[in-house]
């Protein structure tokens, strides 16, 4: 699998650190309660198919990116900078 960093271009998957589901961008308020925080930290839709997850171009420019891809075929549909989506909560 290769990912296209919006800044650096097409790169080997090994240059990227995988954070997980892009739910990390939707950090709840501190007082949101246990259920909400459980949903944010632990519970996952875990789709077999299209997913949206958060990676960092660790061995490159360091940018956090949001990747739209398929978890079954590993096809990548799109990559965008997390900073253009929202603050990365990593």
């Amino acid at each position, binding site marked *: 699998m290769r990912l296209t960093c919006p800044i650096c271009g097409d790169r080997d998957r090994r240059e990227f650190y995988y954070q*997980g589901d892009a739910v990390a961008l939707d950090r709840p308020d501190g007082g949101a309660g246990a259920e909400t925080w459980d949903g944010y930290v632990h519970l996952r*839709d875990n789709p077999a198919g299209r997913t949206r997850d958060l990676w960092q171009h660790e061995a490159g420019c360091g940018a956090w990116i949001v990747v739209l891809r398929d978890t079954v075929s590993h096809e990548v549909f799109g990559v965008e900078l997390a900073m253009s989506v929202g603050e990365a909560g990593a």
Partner: protein
Amino acid sequence: MRFSGLRVLREGLTGNKGWQPHWRDPEPKAEYDAVIIGGGGHGLSTAYYLAKTHGMTNIAVLEKGYIGGGNVGRNTTIVRANYFLQGNSEFYSHSLKLWEGLEEDLNYNVMHSQRGLINLFHSDGQRDAFVRRGNAMAVQGDDAVLLDRAGVARHLPYLDFDNIRFPVYGGLLHPRGGTARHDAVAWGYARGADRRGVDLLQNCEVTGIDIENGAVRGVQTTRGAIRARKVGIVVAGRSGQVAAMAGMRLPIESHVLQAFVTEGLKPCIDHVVSFGMGHFYMSQSDKGGLVFGGDLDFYASYAQRGNLPMAEHVMEAGMTLMPMIGKAKVLRSWGGIMDMTPDGSPIIDKTDTGGLFIDCGWCYGGFKAVPGSGFSLAHLMATGQHHAPAAKFRLDRFRTGRGLMDEEGTGSQHNLH
């Protein structure tokens, strides 16, 4: 049909015409007392112990593919009880004891081979950690022997002891650890359950879970609706999809784990050996293939294959530890889908829906747990009470933060295990 040495001899002399199918291929009934979703190792053993220990024989196992076609046929066959934390320790200890009586119990040769498992260490700090782990194993009543460098050399003379970067300092030997023939485990449990009246329904995919007034009433399948007041979800990497049918989200992310096997070689690796400075472990199958694996590919995936970066990493780690394997040709590689929890430990629990149970989160260690997991889930489904050795595998530990079991000590977060 019972298996015995005499039977093998007689069949051999009479053209092997007397063997029969190991299980029936029944039509689904309209209703069962209990239904297990998932005909893998854990689902089959759950059905077996429900029938054998609890006398529940009007039950069915629903398998979307065929028996033995999922992770139970895709793992690296290692059986061990070398866990450290309370919760895990007593569970795997119990499971290993079941393994030790399994062939007698099932009247089936699962080729359980307690050839010994050696976890190597490569620094003083790692030695301290293994001493601690070994003591925990001994306290649990299991076996652990600390080997110094010379002790390891007596068992594993082929290692690169003086590797410039990762010299071998010693190892923790778990003599009762070993391997088993994974397919035979599935077949043995399937046959044992079938003989007690359990219906094994293959090519029967669950498409919906019927819930009324907060309690489960049955399932919809590709072979029709089936009513049941008790339903167990035992579907490993597919837990998220099946739980969603009951309106649940789980603390599970599915990842691919690769494994590899070489061409058949003469016996050379007598134990199960794991490298302490890179994720690599190896054993040799009875057919002669070197069976080995490493870490997850480390991103969510349902592809039952892996990517080359992890294949390369595993080969590099193997070559660092035992350069003698360098000329062995890799015959094939494959991937299985692991149901990863944030803390790396499993879940056997009730759900918020009455009569609906879940057994999942086995991460990359489900094979050795097959007997214990089925035994404990059967106990929970039949009695409503948690089975003591599995009582800490609670679903709510993530929400409450109480009872997290982070065996690796890396944190309770999805991308850390």
